[in-house]
């Protein structure tokens, strides 16, 4: 499925949009990390919690659960709520 990558993570992917697969949001992130090593740890911490400012949208709907099921036709968007000085 298509995954939209925010600018702070494009040093890993080299692209705004990449392909990845997984039956859940968690599996998708694992696949992304396999393709782009190091990416997952910068958005999910060692306790499997989403880092601050990180948001996931599936077909435009915000999700917080890494167990959220995915369909191959879903479009996933990873968004960073950039803030601060």
């Amino acid at each position, binding site marked *: 499925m298509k995954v939209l990558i925010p600018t702070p993570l494009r040093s890993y992917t080299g692209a705004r949009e990449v392909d990845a697969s997984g039956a859940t949001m968690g599996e998708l992130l694992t696949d992304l990390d396999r393709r782009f090593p190091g990416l997952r740890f910068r958005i999910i*911490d060692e306790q499997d919690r989403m880092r601050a400012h990180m948001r996931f949208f599936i077909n435009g709907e915000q999700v917080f659960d890494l167990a959220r099921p995915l369909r191959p036709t879903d479009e996933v968007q990873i968004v960073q709520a950039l803030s601060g000085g």
Partner: protein
Amino acid sequence: MARTTRKPAAKTKKPAKKARGGRSRPSKTLVMVATRKGAWLFHGDPARKTWRADGPHFLGHIINHVVLDPRDGRTLLAAAKTGHLGPTVFRSTDLGRTWKEAAKPPAFAKAANEEKGRTVDHTFWLTPAHANEPNVWYAGTSPQGLFRSEDGGVSWEEFSIINDDPQYREWMGAQQDGTPDGPKMHSVIVDPRNPSHLYFAMSGGGVHETLDKGRTWKPLVKGLEVVEGFDPATITFHDPHCVRLCPSNPDRLYQQNHCGIYRLDRPSNEWVRIGKKMPKQIGDIGFPMVVHPRDADTAWVFPMDGQTVWPRIAIDGVPAAFGTRDAGKSWKRLDGGLPKSQAWWTVKRQAMTADVQDTVGLYFGTTSGDLWMSRDEGRKWAPIARHLPEIYAVEAAELR
């Protein structure tokens, strides 16, 4: 894996000179500056009079420490995070021309109950291990954690028992016991005579020592004071800001603490508050501690205002380093060339250091982004760079 690429450093044309006493004079000094918005490398000429800025590296990343591996003279490690991404470590084996991210950055073990599991917010401190342990590094994190890499910083594992030891977790305290930007493990020190003999310090949580390569640790806080009203017997209340071991006498350590400047001469376990000899109107509060590379009686500090609400800026807006030549029996103000008024900046605990040249060069960075240098051991200061981002750490190394 994220990478960045920088232009190659210019090559020096002058051969290395032989210094007084037969010591080979290093050809060039490298000053590594970690800031809130990236890292810079400053390459000095052999006389340390002109400096070439190489940077920014990792623009926009929060860089807490950049350290050169003295064992190979080429490998750099940089502790990084951003305001919006998790922490990591970058590694360069070509003096910063290219960087590669660690495959496994420092991270705590996944807890059975994820609500209780700790998360590394940032790696704060990097220390190359013993000269006989090539490619081994230690890292201290925020919140307090101790990590070790045996492959030059590519992968990191939790080191020793302390990260999950109930007693140490108690001593580490809670978030409110640490510094405003997170409690920190710092001052990870390796005894140059013995790789199994290590020290570390925690803000908060005191100074600790192991003689068996981390199997067991003991607090080393006797003689240290704590904030009035707190009990010094409670390790959590101890707040060492920076601890340094003297390379020329590894039995001597100096410490800038939240509550004064101290010296420890082993085998004694009792710190002596040498800051009592500082001028009363200055006091002995500050963050960095710098030792001379060859004279264990010489050390430097940069006092900060520690009164009332703990402003921790240059006292009265008139910054000055202070140096001792007699192991803390007396101190001399060293402010030649520094601003004489209205300079309200802070020098953080990692932001002052020394090189190893015959006449030692001193360097410090300010929270207002200025990098200062003295070629004569503190008597006269001049800026190397102005208007950098807030400076978190400054390290100096000689390029072979």
